[in-house]
């Protein structure tokens, strides 16, 4: 994280008279965010925690009461919570590698000096990223239609006799959803491309003089130099995939079909707080989700020092 770190003169009071006046202006200017942060982030976070110890429920007007750990007891005994968690992790195992690696592969292709018209390709590969999410879901819903979708028509054309039913088959629904996710590679690809352009060419020249081929250059220069970008993409993708639920919500109207296979954790959470208006149980689910996401993120940060290479920390 690049901190402004203006060089401070040592042993001098940091905020003398004029300094304080400027400092006050600083607070004035960031005030909109400070207020917003308090109102829409900090206080709601604490309130979410507080909600989880109450029986707050918008659907029925029961007297508000402190219920201790009752919601957590319910959570532990709620089979759907654990099923949904498994569903989310299963999907993450499939979707995460795609979200991290696919944009890198496309970026490598677009960065190739042999490619004609690379900026046109960049725009077109990015394009689906700005397609509204609902539109993308309906476009892909048609594409993955078992009988009229082009994917199955293509599979039949190359001789696959019983192509999968994709979103209608519990064992094919995750690959189907992962395919829909492929349209989201745009931002990752742009960031990887910028990372690739930032790698000094003399590294490659030195490697070539040392007799390194294309594969060795990729393995020993490109990938290590890109690890900060890979890491960033990975962390954002983890946070995103743990909250995944809007696509199945739109596709199957939040029913979890086929066969409960798309009752993702966040979908279950959403149903609890929005459909059933059960705020207290929703809040309990939300804190578990937050704790799991935070734990995974912290583990990732813990491993980062072993494999993420920051070139001298300087930029």
């Amino acid at each position, binding site marked *: 994280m690049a*901190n*402004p770190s*203006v060089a401070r003169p040592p042993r001098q009071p*940091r*905020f003398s008279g004029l*300094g304080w006046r400027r*400092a*006050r*202006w*600083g607070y*004035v*200017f*960031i*005030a*909109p*965010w400070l*207020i*917003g*942060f308090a109102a829409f982030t900090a206080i*709601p*976070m604490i*309130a*979410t925690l507080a*909600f989880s110890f109450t029986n707050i429920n918008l659907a029925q007007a029961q007297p508000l009461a402190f219920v201790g750990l009752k919601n957590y007891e319910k959570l532990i005994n709620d089979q759907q919570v654990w099923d949904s968690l498994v569903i989310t992790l299963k999907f993450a195992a499939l979707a995460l590698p795609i979200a991290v690696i696919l944009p890198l592969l*496309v970026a490598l*292709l677009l*960065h190739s*000096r*042999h*490619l004609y018209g690379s900026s046109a*390709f960049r725009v*077109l590969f990015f394009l*689906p990223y*700005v*397609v*509204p999410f*609902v*539109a993308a879901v*309906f*476009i*892909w819903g*048609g*594409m993955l239609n078992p009988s009229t*979708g*082009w994917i199955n028509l293509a599979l039949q054309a190359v001789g696959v006799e019983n192509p999968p039913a994709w979103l209608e088959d519990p064992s094919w629904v995750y690959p189907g959803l992962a395919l829909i996710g492929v349209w989201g590679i745009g*931002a990752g690809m*742009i*960031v990887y491309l*910028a*990372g690739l352009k930032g*790698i*000094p*060419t003399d590294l490659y020249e030195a490697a070539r003089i040392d007799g390194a081929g294309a594969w060795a250059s990729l393995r020993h220069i490109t990938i290590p130099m890109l690890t900060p970008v890979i890491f960033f993409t990975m962390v954002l993708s983890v946070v995103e995939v743990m*909250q995944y639920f809007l696509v199945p919500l739109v596709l199957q109207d939040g029913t979890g079909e086929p066969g409960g296979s798309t009752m993702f954790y966040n979908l279950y*959470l959403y149903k609890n*707080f929005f459909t059933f208006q059960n705020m207290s149980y*929703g809040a309990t*689910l*939300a804190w578990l989700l*937050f704790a799991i996401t935070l734990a995974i993120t912290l583990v990732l940060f813990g491993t980062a020092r072993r494999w993420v290479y920051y070139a001298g920390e300087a930029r």
Partner: protein
Amino acid sequence: MTALSIPRRGILRRRGRAAEGSRPPRQRGDSGRSFLITLIAVLILAAFLSPMLRSLAYSVKSLDQITQAHSPLYPADPVMFSFGGEDLPIMNVPMPDGSTRQLALLEPLRRQSTFVDPAAPDAAPIVWEGSWRTLEPVWQFAPHFENFAAVWDLIDYPRLLFNTVFIAVVSTIGTLVSCTLVAYGFARFRFPGRGLLFTLLIATIFLPAAVTIIPTYTVFQRIGWVGTWLPLLVPAFFANAYDVFLMRQYFMTIPTEMDEAAAIDGAGPFRTLISVLIPQAWPVIVAVAVFHLVYSWNDFFGPLLYTAGRPEIQTVALGLQRFNGIYYREPGYIQAGTLMTLVIPVIAFLLTQRFFTRGIVITGVDK
């Protein structure tokens, strides 16, 4: 378009120039390989965008065609032949001698059917042995643009469009004003706790929305804001991490000498922001504006929570979902509606794609 694409100073440009240098020049004798790699890229791109092409084709297909198995991938109508005051469908008929003739179906029967040759309608009808149902009709390219007109009315598109544009414009104004102020505060003033607050700001990017949404929704519900646009508009006026970060990074590249000169001339901090920084920062202002317009246009979760059950205040994205719930048996309508939803953000992106992608680079790489 051209005016937009020449950012005069700052990282948007500087990065661009550095980028040119790192791509090694193409060498002689590489053209064969270039052709191959470009071909591979074209094929991958074609597969990548093919869902859009299918949507485009379906949006102009008639329901008759969609419900017919083995109809062509492109929009088409069966070719008809007018005979004796009747429109007869023309079929591809395999003849006993192995050839195929295009004949108009005059009398469809189970075991044998009679056909008329459109080339010689006055000749005796041709009797063909076999089930006419196994025959493939002859199709001709015929786009049905009336799907769009139908959806326009059915979905009440003008109303959805107005709602979406209104929300997008107001929340973009809020975002621009608040993020400019906050970014200016972080970029140009030193104050105790600045580093910590900035880290906190960035950390909110990684915060799952689930952990804040429930109390927020509850409060909005209690104060009667659910079912109005206020929850979609008001928070925009309190800045967001992405856009503040983007603007702050840009402000930091603008030299402080001019700020200081303005201060010596007696300009206060507000004056300096408006007359020194903002005129130099318009590329990033455009980037944030487009980002937010597209974000707001595409937002689904916010309108889903706060406009549920009130079709008259919903956005295009929500309207499309509601529409799908009613007309899911008419894929032509659904895909036409889908294209009507995506066309504006896609055009906005294409017109400003330089700013758009540079903005993503800054938020993505610098962190």
